[in-house]
């Protein structure tokens, strides 16, 4: 299993760089991960999505898709594409310390 060092903390990651151990994640780490992918500060709306993703993963055992995040949090598709530009599904998962989503819709 590969590891990476983000903001001085060693984290376990898969082949693509997504975290593999949710317990290594923290709010501070999320800020650091966000900076890594050019999201300089996490707003309330970012956190709304992140908190939902974390809770949903803990319950369902898989990463929520954009559609699911949108219907469950009330953040619109447009908002999610603005908050996590270009690749919202993967960026949300990355910052939340979860595997990339496998669902299509």
């Amino acid at each position, binding site marked *: 299993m590969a590891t990476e060092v983000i903001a001085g903390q060693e984290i376990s990651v898969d082949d693509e760089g997504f975290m593999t151990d949710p317990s290594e994640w923290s709010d501070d780490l999320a800020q650091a991960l966000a900076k890594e992918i050019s999201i300089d500060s996490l707003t309330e709306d970012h956190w709304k999505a992140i908190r939902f993703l974390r809770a949903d993963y803990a319950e369902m055992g898989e990463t929520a898709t954009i559609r699911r995040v949108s219907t469950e949090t009330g953040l619109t598709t*447009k908002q999610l*594409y603005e908050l996590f530009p270009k*690749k*919202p599904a993967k960026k949300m998962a990355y910052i939340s310390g979860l595997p990339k989503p496998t669902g*299509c819709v």
Partner: protein
Amino acid sequence: MPKFDDDTDRKVSIILSKGTLDWATAMLVIGNAAVSEGIELHLFFTFYGLDAVLNKKMDHLKVTPLANPAMGMPNAIAALPGVTAMATSMMKKMMKKESVPDHRDFIQMVADAGGHLHVCRLTFDMFGYTKDDLYDEVEDVISAADFLNIADGGQIIFI
């Protein structure tokens, strides 16, 4: 860290020539995958595919087991009144179970994510439609040549 590759110049264009729920959904699943990967997306609606962006028809797309051996129903039965409606209702239930949105919500979601919707000029004129008949998110009514210019340099998928 993952390669997010935000500056990708990838482009996908999908032509929809069929007006049934199954094929329209196939277009939107691929299209949605494209936009969520940051890929530029163009959807081109032609012939019966236009039904997928007509205000009066888009909420009533159907799927039929007639002449569709994969659905496993003899044609003589598939042709009976009500069978298409029944098959459509079953398909919608199956899709809902997999969290696939209704067609209108799905196409809105792809448009909100930045997908571009184009309608075929020839079909539009041939069936005598007006701009008011078209779903709001349709950007323009363009010729086949215009479409090819837009799609140039990317991948084209024909459904």
